[in-house]
């Protein structure tokens, strides 16, 4: 499996459950397309649940940054949920941990968009 992306609506927030690998190729392009589609529908509040992401490389990190910029430029907010140690370590090393609004609890994360 490369990556699975499931989208669901929780109030005004679109939650994207990401599972698998976000690496160069299918994984990163699938994430890009999904975010583009959500923004295209006019959704402003997006929460990326990365709890089931098993692997991310520099291309995947770049895709998170790209998504963040795309959503922000469209007047929305992109936040991250449930980072595992591997993803968290990479975001810390690259100093991106402070760029993203990161949450550990979904209900709390959803409320933070209000």
């Amino acid at each position, binding site marked *: 499996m490369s990556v699975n992306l499931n989208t669901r609506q929780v109030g005004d927030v679109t939650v994207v459950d990401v599972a698998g690998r976000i690496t160069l190729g299918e994984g990163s392009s699938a994430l890009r397309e999904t975010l583009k589609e959500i923004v295209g529908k006019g959704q402003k509040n997006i929460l990326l649940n990365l709890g089931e992401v098993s692997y991310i490389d520099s291309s995947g990190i770049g895709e998170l*940054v790209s998504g963040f910029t795309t959503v922000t430029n469209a007047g929305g907010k992109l936040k991250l949920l449930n980072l595992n140690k591997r993803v968290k370590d990479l975001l810390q090393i690259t100093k991106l941990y402070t760029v993203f609004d990161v949450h550990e609890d979904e209900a709390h994360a959803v409320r933070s968009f209000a």
Partner: protein
Amino acid sequence: MGDLSRPTTESVERSLDSTLDSVDHAEDLAVGLARRAGFDEEDLIKIGLAVRESMVNAVVHGNRYNTNKKVRFSAGMSGNRFTVRVADEGEGFDHANLPDPLKAENLLRTSGRGIFLIRSFMDDFQARHLEPAGTEVTLVKIAVSK
């Protein structure tokens, strides 16, 4: 660190196509070899990602997916040094003058973190230009008893 008391001379060498499948293959080979050499899970993750980033650079930026160009990959343990070499047949680029991805003005760039991650995760990183064309990178991870 795992059991590093076992001496190992195991090594691999491959000539790989310029495809993303080769990236996965090289990563699997390196991680398997490093695991048998006794590296622990944390080091295996670092070695795997560093090899992946090196292979992506060779396939995508070096050979530009050119089916006529190969990527030479080798990995092996010698003493306490796990060494990986990745060589492409591309035009090469200046590894020493890459933008610092940690600078505020570069934080939101969507690329340019690969070499930084390799340097962060390995104990040594060297790059050299090959004649008549290509770049060879050498990555080293030192086995340290934990």
